[in-house]
């Protein structure tokens, strides 16, 4: 295919179809080998009686490896990309061919990502984010590091060119590119370790439980079998019961301490791996974030793409003044962690970052905070209670019929229901919304409050939804159409919902979408 645009501007464009780095076949093949492990294990264990079981398993592995490797090679052969004068074109597909063209103006972010294996081989994944999301994005998996960097600079230059070419000189964007970026947020080692300790995580136990389940067939420990626990812990004469009360208490305490240490360490390791060398810079094009120890990521978030900001905290870290800031961006990729801009910062550090993005973290002094509907508060509490009441009724019937235990145990569910209802009544006091001249503010939560700030004119649509109870009792849920995220206000008095919608629609109507994305 001849790139006609490129003919007009031959100096700038390489109209040659290019291939990805040959080593990407190796990475794809190795990644595919993971799929071969399970069939190999299955084959081995199903035939372990026979002397040739191991060879059969290896043979199956080999066949799968060859097939996967072959496909990886074919896919690599048949994947070409062209960096044209106005767009990037990708042709792919082994049997059926797909050709996709993305104009530079539509590319919002170019992100580079390196996971462990590609990093060892000096490869990088280049992703062009267009706002389409998910599989619709063009991903070049993988190029060499140099190629990746060059391509990103090239795309940024082209993209700038498309915008600036109208008036300013081309040299202006050369200067802009070389301009040193301001670091607006960074996390040193000390901050990272503090952060990691707060990221207490028991994920490792979930993994262990999964492994145990996997191993159940090979080892005689059966985690989900009550007999196992009863035999070892509860029965008189079992190992634990024979220890005596003092030892039991000490053992329990040791268990909890171990749990705490393991949880903290897991959190620390995960955080250090993810956020090592966290740097957020303000560049000419927007925010640039780099982080990661083994998997390095380098993401650019253009300023005008930020649709809303979200802050959150945890109930312990809040005591020490730590909060997290993330953006809701139009070019949202699937991962939720991808737009964390300050995962562990004080409010004093967060406010300037939000200001750079064009957001405020506090409404102006004269803006009033509103609560939700009182009717909603009561109804939600009643609904919470009723659900648990029904569970209790079911449990009581079940226990009576089976005779396993006293039906009075169902009262536990009733108690939980009462607790949930009380919680709902109580938490209502901490839910607020406010409408400033430019922003919508939504605050939620008691011990770990969350704050969402959305720009009024960057909202896409508004929907008021009322269920049957809500209609009788005069409240509604207001859904904001937010690009790249979700935002809603539950249990608003209907008048307030309509007032908010009317006001926000008024500010939306003044600007067209194209003025927002620029």
């Amino acid at each position, binding site marked *: 295919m001849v790139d006609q645009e490129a003919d007009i501007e031959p100096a700038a464009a390489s109209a040659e179809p290019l291939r990805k780095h040959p080593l990407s076949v190796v990475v794809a093949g190795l990644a595919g080998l993971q799929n071969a492990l399970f069939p190999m294990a299955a084959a081995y264990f199903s035939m372990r009686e026979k002397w040739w079981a191991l060879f059969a398993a290896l043979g199956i592995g080999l066949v799968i490896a060859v097939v996967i490797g072959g496909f990886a090679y074919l896919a690599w052969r048949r994947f070409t990309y062209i960096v044209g004068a106005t767009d990037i074109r990708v042709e792919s597909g082994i049997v059926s061919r797909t050709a996709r063209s993305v104009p530079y103006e539509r590319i919002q972010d170019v992100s580079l990502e390196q996971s462990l294996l590609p990093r060892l081989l000096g490869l990088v994944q280049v992703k062009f984010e267009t706002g389409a999301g998910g599989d619709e994005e063009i991903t070049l998996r993988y190029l060499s590091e140099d190629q990746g960097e060059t391509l990103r600079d090239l795309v940024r230059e082209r993209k700038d060119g498309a915008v600036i070419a109208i008036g300013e000189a081309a040299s202006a964007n050369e200067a802009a590119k070389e301009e040193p970026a301001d670091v607006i947020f960074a996390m040193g080692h000390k901050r990272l370790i503090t952060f990691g300790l707060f990221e207490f995580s028991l994920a490792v136990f979930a993994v262990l439980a999964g492994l145990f389940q996997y191993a159940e067939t090979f080892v005689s420990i059966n985690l989900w079998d009550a007999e196992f626990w009863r035999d070892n812990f509860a029965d008189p004469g079992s190992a634990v019961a024979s220890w005596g009360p003092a030892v039991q208490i000490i053992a329990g305490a040791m268990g909890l301490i171990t749990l705490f240490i393991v949880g903290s360490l897991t959190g620390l390791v995960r955080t250090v791996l993810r956020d090592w060398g966290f740097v957020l810079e303000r560049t000419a094009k927007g925010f640039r974030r780099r982080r990661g120890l083994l998997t390095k990521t380098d993401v650019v978030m253009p300023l005008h793409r930020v649709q809303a900001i979200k802050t959150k905290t945890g109930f312990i870290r809040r005591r020490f003044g730590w909060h997290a800031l993330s953006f809701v961006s139009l070019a949202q990729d699937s991962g939720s962690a991808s737009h964390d801009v300050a995962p562990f910062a004080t409010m004093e550090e967060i406010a300037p970052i939000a200001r750079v993005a064009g957001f405020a973290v506090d409404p102006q002094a004269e803006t009033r905070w509103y609560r939700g509907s009182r009717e909603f508060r009561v109804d939600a509490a009643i609904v919470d209670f009723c659900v648990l009441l029904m569970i209790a009724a079911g449990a009581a019937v079940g226990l009576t019929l089976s005779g396993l235990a006293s039906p009075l145990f169902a009262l536990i569910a009733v108690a939980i229901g009462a607790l949930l209802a009380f919680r709902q009544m109580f938490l209502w006091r901490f839910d607020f919304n406010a409408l400033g001249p430019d922003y919508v503010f939504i605050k939620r939560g008691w011990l770990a409050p969350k704050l969402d700030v959305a720009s009024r004119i960057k909202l*896409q*649509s508004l*929907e008021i939804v009322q*269920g049957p109870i809500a*209609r009788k009792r005069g409240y509604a849920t207001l859904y904001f159409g937010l690009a790249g995220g979700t935002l809603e206000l539950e249990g608003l008095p209907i008048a307030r919902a309509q007032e908010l919608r009317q006001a926000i629609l*008024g500010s939306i109507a003044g*600007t067209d*979408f194209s003025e927002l994305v620029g």
Partner: protein
Amino acid sequence: MQLTMDDTDDSLTALHPNHVKVTRISAILFVLPFVIGSIILEVAELLPFGIFVVPTVLLAAFIVIRVPLRRYQARGYDLGNDRLRVVRGILFRHDSVVPFGRVQHIDVDQGPLQRAYGIATLTVHTAGTHNSSVHLPGLGNDDALAMRETIRAHIKRETT
């Protein structure tokens, strides 16, 4: 330039009457297998006459006759100067407003049934995650095309 829009249901425009017919035919196609199934069970004479067929037919009649009419009555739209409002739902009322300036693209779809009755579905797409596409079925085909042109003209004017 923008007009305020009142939030009451009085300002809503009703859909094309043929929409009821089309939804009824779809409903018939939906309940038909169940009705046939119940008749087969009756023929097999497993239980006294009417245990299967009577409730099934009553329910089917309700789904075919009553529900489409109620849903039609609950639906409505309002094409304002700079925004489209779409209301739907019997039990759960959904009341969406999409400003023209936020419409990404517009579809007008006609299935075979809809074409036979001269109606169409207008769909406006927005960049928002919630309400990424707002469907408005049961418009007269010409109305749908005219609405598309209105919205498109508005987008063009704002953009240039």
